[in-house]
């Protein structure tokens, strides 16, 4: 694959961003969009430097990233374990799968007062909110991945007299990994949305708190720039999980 072909998706993605930004700039400057509601993209770009220098955004970025990382580790350990349990105990699966799916669509973020009572106004509340909200997709996708393992692969394992542990580590898990990673990526997105949301609501911690403060000051370019950092956290986690998946399952 040539360098040009390899770079094409990234170039197209960045190009699209530039074109949309330029179009937005033109529409705002032309008066089609109210500049008091949507700030000029050029002002947002300039605000990046300002929030780095004046608002300590790097520290806040690292704080939100760390909270998402802890929540991500928790959903991986607990979510995958629960998915495995539901896959092994059919009665439990039949009893709980629908409830887990229903839980996935519940607006967990609204439960933040309860978490505040339990854990106090601290990073633990923020992490636990992210963890609880992100758990269902990890459980469901782990379950789906394991259940969808092609029976012929299991039969190959049986024909080679694999022990149950070998069957799990050598066949079931690698076969289920792509679907499990879809769940983990979804889970991380859910976790991050809830973490930033709770930071915003309780005015505590990382980027969510910063967005709250900037919005309160009606600093719209700064608010959008801070949201840009939230997107950066998401991109970072997406990139890292993709790398881990490729490392664990090369093809």
């Amino acid at each position, binding site marked *: 694959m040539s360098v040009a072909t390899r770079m094409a998706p990234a170039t197209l993605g960045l190009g699209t961003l530039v074109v949309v930004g330029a179009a937005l700039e033109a529409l705002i400057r032309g008066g089609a969009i109210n500049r008091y509601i949507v700030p000029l993209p050029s002002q947002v770009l300039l605000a990046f430097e300002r929030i780095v220098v004046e608002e300590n955004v790097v520290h806040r970025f690292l704080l939100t990233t760390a909270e998402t990382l802890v929540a991500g580790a928790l959903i991986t350990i607990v979510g995958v374990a629960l998915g495995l349990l539901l896959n092994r105990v059919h009665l439990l699966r039949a009893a709980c799968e629908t409830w887990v799916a229903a839980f996935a669509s519940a607006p967990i973020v609204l439960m933040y007062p309860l978490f505040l009572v339990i854990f106090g106004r601290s990073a633990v509340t923020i992490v636990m909110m992210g963890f609880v909200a992100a758990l269902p997709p990890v459980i469901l996708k782990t379950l789906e991945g394991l259940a969808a393992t092609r029976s*012929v*692969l299991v039969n*190959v394992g*049986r024909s*080679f*007299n*694999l022990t149950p542990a070998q069957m799990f580590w*050598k066949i079931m898990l*690698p076969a289920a990994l792509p679907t499990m990673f879809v769940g983990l990526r979804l889970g991380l997105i859910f976790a991050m949305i809830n973490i930033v949301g709770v930071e915003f609501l309780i005015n505590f911690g990382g980027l969510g708190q910063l967005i709250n403060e900037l919005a309160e000051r009606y600093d719209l370019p700064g608010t959008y720039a801070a949201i840009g950092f939230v997107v950066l956290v998401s991109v970072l986690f997406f990139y890292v999980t993709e790398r881990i998946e490729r490392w664990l399952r090369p093809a």
Partner: protein
Amino acid sequence: MSAPTAISADVRTSAQQVGFVGVENIVKRFVTPEGTVCAVDDVSFDVRHGEFLSIIGPSGCGKSTLFNIIGGLLGDYEGRVTVGGETIRGTHAAIGMVFQEESTFPWRNVLENVAFPLEISGLPKAERHERARHFIGLVGLDGFERRHPAELSGGMRQRVAIARTLAAAPQILLMDEPFAALDEQTRLLLGDKVLQIQQSLKQTTLLITHNITEAVQLSDRILVMTYRPGRVKRIVDIELPRPRTSEIVSSTAFGHHVAEIWNDLREEASRGMRDEEAHARHRGAL
């Protein structure tokens, strides 16, 4: 899952004269919503040491059920399966299975796929890779060791599956329509490859197929099964010279054997077709 059992050397030697694999009075019934269906009814035959035996029959004659019973993947049947005179239940180290469906592990490259059974048996990495390379060469895939299945054709993937099974050094190679998903030319050429391997390893081989040409090209004997319930209709000796290649398909004797098998199969296949039509009409009427 039962543990593999070893077969004693004495038994193995004596088995070379008589049936090495014995299938005795196998009956298998399935319970379905429409009632109990007898898939295989009192099937008995044996496979001699180093022999290539094919089982042929129309769809629904219980071929795959027999494959699963002999391979130990299906239990709860009457009768018994023996290897070297010893009754076996469950999967067995002496039997290596090649499946109809694509069965390579997509996350492993060719070398790792073929080395899989050696890895399970705890062979050191260098040694298992060396042995795996030997079997990769045997199926003609030298140079593809680092490729993943997604980068290979269907025929190549099936050769990887065969090499992986052979790497476990089974005494009996059990194959269930391994070329069913391939085109006719690839099927003939892969048949050549299987013949070469079988002849060089003197591998006792049992092939399940519905393809008459394939069965005649490869086999020493062909067992023809009846449509449901699956019974042994006839066992035909294939008196074609060995070593064989796919060029044999143009010989008169080959054509004679194909016609002979088809004469046996035609009635069964027609019965199967009528039965399926009747079922479809019944379903439509409901």
